[in-house]
């Protein structure tokens, strides 16, 4: 096991610096591979930082406390999704019905299929109830899992893992399904992959980013309303 010099581990800039470096390495790798979706910078950074924590025996809680300066910027960034959203308002007005329909179906399917697949594959009810809200942004997913009787921290991890999955697979899979509309791409990435999915869409195209931001917000609302009835309907 590696030991970190004490003055390094307690330096307030150390963990933010490590996080930034890991993400920069991930972005560099993706750039080298000409934007290969699988080389997602978030995924690479999580693996690199995770490996460093294991190697140095640093508890996650200590890392998370140290990386707060970066984590705190997540809130203003979420609010900032309003800017591309407002730019896309004329487009939204023209596709409002399709957007609302897609949101309700996508959110409902995410909850119902999560619950039923866990049951069919032999998982525990606790896992199923933590899986149900994985499509919404992490703070809402945690609150909903808590209400349903799932485990909030597992729900948070599943929400982020689902987002990474969306970031890695959205382009090839949507291309396979002949989805050519950036509004469809963005709304789907935000509905299925919440924040991490939206972060992926923002980098692809401005319109995709706008609809992904809208989806993150609306999906929280729609899922919070639908999750109780769907869970009961599925027999939990």
């Amino acid at each position, binding site marked *: 096991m590696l030991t970190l010099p004490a003055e390094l581990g307690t330096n307030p800039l150390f963990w933010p610096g490590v*996080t930034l470096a*890991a993400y920069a390495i991930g972005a560099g790798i993706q750039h080298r591979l000409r*934007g*290969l*979706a699988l080389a*997602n910078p*978030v995924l690479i*950074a*999580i693996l690199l930082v995770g490996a460093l924590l294991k190697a140095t025996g640093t508890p*996650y809680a200590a890392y998370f406390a140290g990386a707060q300066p970066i*984590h705190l910027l*997540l*809130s*203003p*960034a979420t*609010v900032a999704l*309003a*800017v591309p959203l*407002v730019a896309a308002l004329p487009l939204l007005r023209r*596709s409002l*019905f399709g957007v609302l329909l*897609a949101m309700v179906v996508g959110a409902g*399917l*995410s909850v119902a*299929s999560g619950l039923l*697949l*866990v049951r069919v*594959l*032999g*998982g*525990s009810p606790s896992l*199923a109830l933590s899986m149900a809200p*994985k499509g919404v942004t992490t*703070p809402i997913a945690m609150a909903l899992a808590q209400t349903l009787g799932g485990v909030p*921290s*597992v729900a948070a*991890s*599943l929400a*982020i893992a689902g987002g*990474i*999955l969306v970031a890695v*697979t959205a*382009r090839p*899979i*949507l291309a396979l*399904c002949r*989805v*050519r*509309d*950036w*509004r469809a791409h963005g709304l*789907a990435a935000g*509905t299925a992959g919440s924040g*991490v999915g939206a*972060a992926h869409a923002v980098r692809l*195209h401005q*319109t995709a980013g706008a609809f992904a931001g809208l989806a993150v917000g609306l999906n*929280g*609302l729609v899922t*919070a309303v639908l999750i109780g009835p769907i869970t009961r309907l599925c027999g939990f």
Partner: protein
Amino acid sequence: MLNAFLLLIGAQLVGAGLQSAMHLPLPAPVIGLFLLAMALAIRPVWRSRGLEQVSGGLLHHMGLLFVPAGVGLIDHLDLVGAETLPLLGALVGSTLLSLVATALIVEWHGRIGIRLPGGPHAHPAR
């Protein structure tokens, strides 16, 4: 730039106030997102260059901001070991089902309406 950052943080703080006062089921930043969108739609002059720059910078690197929370995944690796098949099967199946269904509904609805120039077909996915 300064005012733009203040606007982002202000929208979130007002969102936090509304959330606790009205017991809304949404987190404060998401309420802030809708508040700022409404404010910008009503007062287009607030869509300054500074706001475009600050929000563009934050959003372009939004993935970075998920890394501290995402590293928490490693704390749950023991759970993956215990329930590997239901966990991975449901996560992958359910996420992709939701992704494809949402995209296809917007796509089919959009075909009746308008077409966008420069859709994903302009950059074939690998």
